[in-house]
Each structure stands twice: as structure tokens, then as C-alpha cells.
């Protein structure tokens, strides 16, 4: 029995997979204390033959299955794993030598820990503004997790490089194989609800080769729109954490609703329009009109997202029902009354108290003075002591300053 099992789902990416496996042979963590399970999911490029012929020092297990998707492949891998910890790695991640060691170090501190590794991206061939935006988007995901007092949400779980205990994975029931897209978010949500402790480990670093381009990103938005409907059907309350609802609730809500109507009626016409506008992006880029470029891209992303929503919900009525359900569930749910925290006796004491109760929402007071109210946020981890200073500094600095002045 090994301490940790590395599970790699793969689908027709022989050469990338080979690099991934090679990087795993050069770990600071002892070779004899981990195993590697590769799940070849519907491969027909000779991946299995390559793996069988491989003379590798890794304790390698190969599982073959017909193409059921990454979620199912990861579950199959986990069912064969003997380690007490599971590390899920994508087939295009080149691990740095400390990756395994860093994961294990974090996992051993807390049985409920979910460790999210760092995936700096190596851009492959993207050009222009999209290239710079893509890099910013990737890095920002990790930059925010590295901020002090960061409150994790289900959207922070990235399936490319994360680990948890085999026991926790089993208790939670593994991945939901019905999700073909955003299956990591779905797992993340159940983990957050089960009180798992998310953490970011920058030393658990694996280079990620990013081959996407602008058109593929737009396609991806369409898939995300479809996944959002699936999400909303299973978890009506989560709809508030999805982009769709914030778009509906914002000032643009009505415009989006109209857009949706047109999308339902004449999808081929709106699609052509969207494709034409996509070409217009190139002109804006040539003219270096970055602001307009960004605004148009945001619109196109929103369009393809809504297009996915429309396709997945089938018809207008059904979508409206989903949205109405979400509306009806707003502010309900199992949220108890906000926890009242007095910080007058010092921030340190308040942090200890917050750690003890870990509420979902919070009313902060300074003696008789009211400082602020922290909303319950569905899909986010409960409030901990570590969040308190950042919340006060970022959201309630003014009222805290008043309270401190009046108190003197």
C-alpha cells in the first residue's frame, strides 16, 4: 500500500501524457511511496500500447475504458487506487519536482483538506490581445487564492492538479459522471457543503500547456452555458453563483431576456450575427482599440453562454421555470440567523470565536456600534477567523474607523 495515488485520465494525447509521466519520475517524494494510475478513456491513438511498452520506474496501473468522459475516468482510477491520498492530475501537466511532496505535506495537516495546486500556463501559439488576456485570466485564478483571508468557493476547484484523502473522496461519492463539463465545480460544491477545507499550495506546481484560442474559448462558453442549466436543475440555489443569474439580475437583465427570445426563435440568424461580430474583433485589434475589443468579446462570450443555456433548457418556458424556481429559493434555504460577533475585545479573540462557530453569515459589531453584515454566499466556505481582518479592511473600513474614533 502506497501513501498517495496519482490518477491521470487521458484521451488521445500520447505525447503530452508521456511528458507528464516523465516529470513524475523526477519527484523529491520517494518513488516507492506513490503509485500512478492512468485511465485511458476511449483512446485510439495507441496510448495503451505506448503505456504497456513503457519501461518506467513508476508503479504504473493502466485502466482502459470506452470514452465515458473525464469524470467517469477519474472515478474508475480512484476505485483502483490503494493510496490513502488521491492526487488528480491532467494528462498535459508537467509536474515540478516538488509537486507530490507539497501535496502530501498539506494533506497530512488536516484529513478534510482539499489541496489545489498551482498551474502556471505555458502559452502555445496564441497571439495579440487574446494572448495577454489569457495569461492574466489564468494567473488571476491563483493570485486571488494566494491573498490573505481569501474565501474559497466551489469554482476554485480545478481538476487539473488537486488532491484529497481517499476517504473524503469516497464519502462524497466521487465525481458526478452526468457532468461532461464543469464536473470539477460540481465536485467542488459537494466538498464545500461537506465542510472540506480548501487550500492553495503554490509549491505544488505543474506547468500547463495551453493550446486554446479565441474561437475555442467561445465554444467553451457555449458548453458552460449548457452545464449551467444542468447545475441549476440539480442545485436550484446555486444558480445565484452562476454568471447567468447575475446577468439577469443586473441592469442588462431585460436586454438579455430579449436576446434569449431571439436566440430561441431564430438561432441560425443570431449565430451568423455573432460570427460576423467575431470577425469585427480582428479589426478592433488591428486598430488597437483594446477597450472596445474587450467589451465586444464580453458580449460574444455572454451570447455563446446564453446560446448554450437556450440549447440545454430546450424551450423558453422551461428556462423561465428554472429562473423562477431560483427566485423562489432566494433568501431561503438552511441559513440560520446571522451570527453576531463583537470585535471590541480585540481582533485576535474575535478570530478565535469565529473559528469556533464557523457561521455562514455574520453581523459584526464593535461594542454598541454596528460595523457591517456579511451575506450568506451559497457555494462558499463557511466564515473562519482567517477571513475576518480582510473582510474588515476591504468592506467595512469606514464604519470601523468611525467606531474606533467614537470609542475614544
Amino acid at each position: 500500500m502506497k501513501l498517495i495515488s496519482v490518477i491521470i485520465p487521458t484521451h488521445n494525447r500520447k505525447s503530452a501524457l508521456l511528458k507528464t509521466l516523465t516529470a513524475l519520475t523526477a519527484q523529491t517524494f520517494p518513488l516507492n511511496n506513490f503509485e500512478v494510475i492512468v485511465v485511458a478513456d476511449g483512446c485510439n491513438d495507441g496510448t495503451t500500447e505506448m503505456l504497456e511498452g513503457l519501461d518506467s520506474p513508476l508503479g504504473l496501473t493502466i485502466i482502459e475504458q470506452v470514452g465515458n468522459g473525464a469524470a467517469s475516468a477519474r472515478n474508475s482510477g480512484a476505485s483502483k487506487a490503494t493510496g490513502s491520498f488521491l492526487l488528480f492530475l491532467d494528462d498535459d501537466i508537467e509536474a515540478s519536482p516538488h509537486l507530490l511532496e507539497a501535496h502530501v505535506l498539506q494533506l497530512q495537516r488536516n484529513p478534510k483538506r482539499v489541496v489545489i495546486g498551482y498551474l502556471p500556463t505555458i502559452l502555445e501559439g496564441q497571439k495579440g490581445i487574446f494572448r495577454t488576456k489569457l495569461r492574466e485570466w489564468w494567473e488571476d485564478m491563483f493570485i486571488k487564492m494566494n491573498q490573505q483571508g481569501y474565501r474559497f468557493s466551489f469554482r476554485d476547484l480545478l481538476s487539473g492538479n488537486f488532491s484529497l484523502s481517499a476517504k473524503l473522496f469516497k464519502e462524497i461519492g466521487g465525481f458526478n459522471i452526468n457532468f461532461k463539463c464543469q464536473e470539477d465545480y460540481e465536485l467542488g460544491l459537494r466538498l464545500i457543503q461537506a465542510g472540506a477545507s480548501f487550500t492553495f499550495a503554490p509549491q505544488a506546481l505543474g506547468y500547463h500547456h495551453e493550446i486554446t484560442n479565441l474561437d475555442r474559448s467561445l465554444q467553451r462558453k457555449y458548453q458552460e452555458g449548457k452545464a449551467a442549466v444542468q447545475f441549476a436543475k440539480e442545485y436550484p440555489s446555486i444558480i445565484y453563483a452562476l454568471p447567468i443569474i447575475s446577468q439577469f439580475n443586473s441592469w442588462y437583465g431585460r436586454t438579455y431576456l430579449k436576446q434569449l427570445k431571439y436566440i430561441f426563435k431564430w438561432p441560425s440568424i443570431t449565430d451568423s450575427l455573432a460570427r460576423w461580430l467575431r470577425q469585427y474583433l480582428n479589426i478592433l485589434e488591428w486598430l488597437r482599440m483594446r477597450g472596445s475589443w474587450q467589451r465586444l468579446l464580453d458580449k460574444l462570450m455572454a451570447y455563446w453562454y446564453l446560446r448554450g443555456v437556450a440549447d440545454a433548457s430546450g424551450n423558453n418556458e422551461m428556462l423561465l421555470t428554472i429562473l423562477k424556481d431560483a427566485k423562489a429559493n432566494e433568501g431561503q434555504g438552511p441559513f440560520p440567523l446571522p451570527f453576531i460577533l463583537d470585535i471590541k475585545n480585540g481582533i485576535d479573540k474575535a478570530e478565535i470565536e469565529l473559528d469556533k462557530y464557523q457561521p455562514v453569515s455574520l453581523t459584526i459589531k464593535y461594542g454598541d456600534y454596528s460595523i457591517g453584515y456579511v451575506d450568506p454566499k451559497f457555494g462558499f466556505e463557511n466564515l473562519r477567523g482567517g477571513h475576518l481582518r480582510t473582510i474588515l479592511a476591504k468592506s467595512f473600513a469606514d464604519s470601523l474607523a468611525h467606531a474606533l474614533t467614537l470609542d475614544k
Partner: protein
Amino acid sequence: MATAVLDLDFKRLPFDISNLSHYTKALLLVRYNKVPVGQLTIPVTDGRIIISEHYISLLKAVGPALQENKINEYLGWNERNVINYVQPSVTVAVCTRDRPEDLRRCLDALMQLPNDGQEYIVIDNCSSTDETRNLVQKYKAVRYIYEGKPGLNNARNRALLEARHEIVAFTDDDAIPDTGWLQALLLNFNNPLVMGVTGLTMPLELETAAQELFERYSPFGKGFRRVVHSATLHNPIATGKVGAGANMALRRNVQFEVGFFDEALDAGTPTHSGGDHEMFARILVSGYRIVYDPCALNWHRHRRTTEELRQTLYGYGVGVYALLTKHILLEREFSALKIAFSWFKHDQLPALYRSLLRRPGHVATDLILAELRGCLVGIGAYFTSRKRAARSKSL
């Protein structure tokens, strides 16, 4: 007519400050726990200022930044801190040319900085005498490097090549750093997208009319709030508020990610200035960020004579327009036209108007005209300078 420059801490404000009989005004830099929170200018009466008489204006000047710092102190919280921060190693680079007196003061101040294992280099850019070399050799901790190609940007590029550490912090030879300068710069390199950090530059002295004019007309300081500049926040080629080369630090690998400084720009070439801002623009266009942090404080000795000031302002005009010309003609950055127009409309034209009407506190007309003349020259200067740089390369 002279202005005293005073450095005060809000927690230890003196009742009064005397012995200022030489001065008619005082520029106060106010700090809270060493952090600069505001500045204000007040009159000196009978060689003395009484702080409580100006307390209201002082509070007004420090207001928002003071509150922020008080709250952060109470909470023990700092927006720059991240969970996994490893302080990067740093090389401090001073680019200089024939200014041994200034350089001595700069090096003396650098030697007072807390030692975190930083490296010091002086890039001597074609000094005409041996004085610079002889001076630097007296400082054991400083490495002397001679750069034979004239041009401040050539010297900066040489510094990027010679530096042995991850970050290269640049200070002008006519500036001196505050004790916390280097550490404040480094604390902002807390994520991989931060490619550069700039700081607050205050005047070292305002002894002459030329120095007072410079500080009023084109001060280095960019305010007392920390700003993370990015192409998302504003037009990346509008770099006026980002900072200046007199007080900046860059990742050494900027040379691979973004490129070297443009050797056709800045002092020592026909374009006179603009080299730092061209680099800032390219960093932002490439999707990286530049943090302006007032905690990274240094003090700059402005030019003392009106003639030098005229040269400086002329040089600014040339550099800015050379840079804008490059943006428009080589990079299709047409918004550069807007930048030029708004500079003229909001700064140059009002200054000219005030000057012609002899409004109080106006800048002499010939100085403004020197800057405008520089702007006209600048349009052609970039290409003259490029040709010259290309020729010197081929030799």
C-alpha cells in the same frame, strides 16, 4: 524665495518648527508609521511654522490615506501581503554620467539601506573623466560597469544584463532613497503578473526658483494611494500616472517577456527623455502590471538653474512627442493623438494662458514655450535617434 522641505510623522508632530528664516514657505511630507500619507505647502512666518495653526489643512491633505493606514494598523493587515511570499533578491542599479557630486550623495544613502543581501551596480554611461570610476571604487559593495554607448536606455539595458538578482531597482544618480525604499518596492512583487513597481519621488530641496517651478509645474509624485496599473484599468500607453525611471524596479526577466529598453529614447540621445514611459507602456500592453506604491519613497534634487530647467522641460517635450510618434507610426496606437491633445488642452494651454496673463504662481512663458518647441522637435527626433542608434550598432 525658497521652500523648506520637511519630513514629519503624524504621530509625533512637533508644536512648532523654527530656524526657517531662510524660507518663505515649507513643503511638508506627512507620514504615518513611516508611510507617506500626504503633502502640503504652508507659509513660513518669521522663520517659524506653528503646526496647530495649519492643522485643518494638514488633516485635509492626509485624510483618506491616513484613515486607511490607521485601520490597517489596528487590524495588523497589509494589502501587499500574500500567504506564500518569498522576498525576491535584488540588484540596485544607478545609471550616471559626469555627476560625481550627486552620485556620492546617492551612494552614501544607498549604503545606509538595511542589508538584505542586495547587490549594487553603477553603470557609468560615457563619463568624460575618471572621476566617476575613482569615486565608485571607494565603495567596496558597489560594482562599477562602464557602458560606452551613450544613452540612458543603453545604460539601463546594461544594468538588466549585468544584474545577478531577480529584481533590478533603478534610482537616478541625483536622487537619494528613503531607508524603507527598497523593501517597499520588493513587497509589491507579490505575484507573477507584477513586472514593475514605481514609487513616490519627492523634492530633496527647493532652494531656487527653478526648483520650486519644476515641483509646481511637473512634480514626480503620483499621489499617496497605491495603484495597480494594468491595460484593463486604463489605456496602456497613457503612462503619465504610472511613475518615472527615477524610482522604479523591474523584474530582470522583463528583457525576455517584454524586451529591452528602446535605445533610441531618453537622455543622451536626440529624444532626451521618454525611455521609461515607453517601457511602462510595453509592459502594460503585454498584459503585465505595474504597481505604484507611495511607500517606496525617494528624494530627487531638481535642477537648480533656470537654464537647466528650460533644458529639462524642452527635453520632456521632445521625449513625449518622440514616444507618441513612435506609438502612432510604428504601433498603430492612434489613441496617442488623444493623449497629446489632452496634455495640450488640460496642462500646456492653461499654463500658457496663466503665464501670459501674469496670474499668481504662473510659470515663465519662455519655459512653457521651450516645452512646446520640444514637442515640435520631438516628432522628428525619434527617427533621427533610431538612425543614429542603428549606425552606432553597425560600426
